[in-house]
């Protein structure tokens, strides 16, 4: 870490900030245009659909980045929120396809003759739209409140979210009669706005929706992480006690940011579901939720672009690698975890910044960036502390 002291006056810094914002906005719009206009021309339907799914996964990566990269809470349970969003949308589609008074087909298999109560509201599209955000947010908020209230954090939080994931998996998997258990809900033959979800037109629609949602979520996260609130998140990550003794209640902040992160995952789940054609308890597999974390780590935590980049790249690699060498994928993925943790803690973005950062920013006329992802505990005293509740 080089100490690059910038002594420039504040005004220049502000100008640089403004300019940075402009450049960023232009870049986002340019990328959106490339994704929406150029990609469909370049890619086959199959590949475009894949890209759409990856972008949906990139949205969940944004959520993970918010809670982990910025706030320092490693959630291994985002599969829950992803699934909740997916199920909410799939339930609506299932009902939307049916005629008046009909029941979804699978109910017949288990001898259910009356629609369970909780299915009823999903007849309404506005409700579903809200539910995609709100149900994951509420579940996350509640879980977060119960956990954070007791100052359970660090690895304890991770383990508990993982356990919650297992529980939700068991619940969804076991409740055949309510939500079709292991089989999950299919969406590709369902109707949406008068068209089949799996049809080419609808796919294009969902692809574009995903791009737009991604940009919207990016903007949301950008807004959250800049300004005082964002600094607060970083402060909580750096030193929660200090935050508390400065008069803030970190629990409220953490609950809010966890809920937002859950809602983002819910949106991702809904968009992923319609593009992959099925939502099943499998998305609450332990491995899947840990993978989400590694996307963020590969891209570079605490950088929103990194989260998106990581999600898309890792999934692309997975898709292609497992097509060609199915055996190798696990080795590759395992190695990825190791490399990111040991050799590339700042991910691709951090590495890129270190290599080319100054060159890029000087071309763009920006102040040099010097923001390595500093370790949670760079102080030698803090390194020996016991991990859990311990905090000297």
């Amino acid at each position: 870490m080089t100490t690059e002291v910038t002594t420039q006056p504040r005004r220049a810094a502000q100008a640089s900030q403004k300019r940075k914002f402009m450049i960023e906005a232009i870049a986002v719009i340019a990328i959106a245009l490339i994704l929406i206009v150029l990609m469909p021309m370049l890619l086959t339907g199959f590949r475009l659909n894949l890209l759409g799914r990856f972008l949906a996964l990139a949205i969940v990566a944004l959520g993970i980045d918010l809670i982990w990269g910025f706030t320092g809470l490693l959630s291994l349970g985002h599969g829950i929120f992803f699934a909740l969003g997916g199920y909410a949308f799939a339930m609506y589609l299932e009902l939307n396809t049916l005629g008046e008074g009909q029941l979804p087909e699978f109910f017949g298999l288990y001898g259910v003759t009356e629609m369970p109560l909780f299915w009823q509201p999903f007849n309404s599209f506005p409700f579903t739209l809200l539910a995609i955000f709100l149900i994951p947010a509420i579940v996350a908020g509640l879980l977060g409140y119960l956990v954070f209230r007791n100052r359970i954090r660090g690895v304890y939080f991770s383990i508990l979210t993982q356990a919650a994931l297992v529980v939700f998996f068991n619940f969804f998997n076991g409740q055949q009669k309510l939500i079709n258990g292991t089989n999950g809900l299919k969406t590709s033959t369902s109707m949406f706005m008068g068209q089949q979800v799996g049809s080419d037109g609808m796919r294009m629609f969902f692809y574009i929706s995903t791009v737009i949602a991604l940009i919207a979520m990016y903007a949301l996260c950008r807004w959250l992480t800049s300004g005082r609130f964002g600094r607060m998140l970083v402060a909580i990550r750096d030193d929660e006690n200090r935050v508390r003794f400065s008069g803030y209640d970190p629990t409220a902040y953490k609950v809010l940011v966890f809920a937002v992160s859950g809602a983002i995952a819910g949106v991702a789940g809904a968009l992923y579901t319609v593009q992959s054609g099925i939502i099943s308890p499998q998305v609450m597999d332990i491995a899947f939720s840990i993978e989400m974390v590694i996307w963020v780590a590969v891209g570079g935590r605490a950088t929103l672009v990194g989260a998106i980049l990581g999600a898309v790249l890792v999934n692309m690699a997975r898709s292609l690698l497992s097509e060609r060498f199915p055996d190798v994928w696990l080795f590759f993925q395992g190695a990825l975890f190791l490399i990111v943790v040991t050799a590339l803690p700042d991910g691709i973005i951090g590495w890129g910044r270190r290599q080319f950062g100054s060159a890029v920013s000087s071309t763009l006329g920006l102040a040099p960036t010097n923001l390595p992802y500093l370790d949670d505990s760079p102080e030698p005293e803090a390194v020996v502390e016991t991990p859990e509740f311990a905090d000297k």
Partner: protein
Amino acid sequence: MLEGLIGGLFNGISIGAVLLIVALGLAIVFGLMGVINLAHGELMMFGAYTTFVVQNVAKSMGGIAPEIYVFAALPLAFVVSALLGLLLERTVIRYLYGRPLETLLATWGVSLILIQLIRSISWPMVIGLVIFATLFLIGRWALTRYTDWDRISQWANPIFLGLSVAIAAVVSFLVQSSGSSQFVRPWFGAQNVDVTPPSWLRGGVAIGSALQFPYARLFIIVLTILCLVAVYWFLNGTAWGLRIRSVTQNRGMSACLGIPTERVDALTFALGSGLAGIAGFAVTLLGSVGPNLGGNYIVDAFMVVVVGGVGKLVGSIVAALVIGIVTYLVGSGTIALILPPTAFFQPAIDFFNFFATTSMAKVMVFALIIAFLQVRPAGLFPPKGRSVEL
């Protein structure tokens, strides 16, 4: 009624004993070193596969060997897993001390590699690995000795790594395509393998008319107790145990006092891993042995550690037994049976019957754990003192 009670207690304890023996190594590694070892399950798997290999050797020897192979398998499972753990600690974990979240991710990566390793390990692959290791290590050694290593390490390291991998991969590929099918076949493959306990562990001792305690369960309970005693003795009665405890308390001070902390770390991790090996051996008596063996146990084991509180063995013991008994009572529907079948209790009975399947019992147990943590956020036996309170 009494029989039911004893039976229930025994079954709960036997579930708890399995949880405990699985969680024991985890509790040591987590409690003493602050390392979240998600590869613990895979270390168990290696213990189980060691048992499988020992069993096959015993079977081929014939005679009395298949009846007593467990006594060879047990220490070997310990040793194999401990060595693997040692390797893991030396190559990965030691760079990550004090960063539990990083250890969590890294060990998850390790677990993926281990799972795929056990699936696809074969002679060509072993040859490849050995070639890689030799080339890389010898090359590095030669370079460091005869060149100005510091100057060239920047570019030489990756090149050397790439070169060794490439040569190893090519050789391994050539062997793969030229060898006889028997030779190139994976050793274990993706299938589950069959580990059969010796006949004396297969039956059960009958008590009364309706009760039978399976020998395998009794054996595991005894094994768990022995492990506990051994661990307790090791930590509290030996010089190395003292060192481990002192490093846990204060690493910096211990180092100043001449305790080789690195060796202590390696030893502790190896001990935890070895216990995973023993747990792996134990579960072969009950369940299947396959590449995915570890994943079935790891989350439950972590729950035990969390509920028990970090760094206290007694916490883990109590937590494992309580979780075991609750799981059993809920899962087998005993609670619903105990309640008197009157109208007053009917809602409660319906409620418990809803949870009286193995899947739903897990849901219930987790809800209880969350509720418990509201009261005791630091577990049953939280470490006390100024330094640990927020």
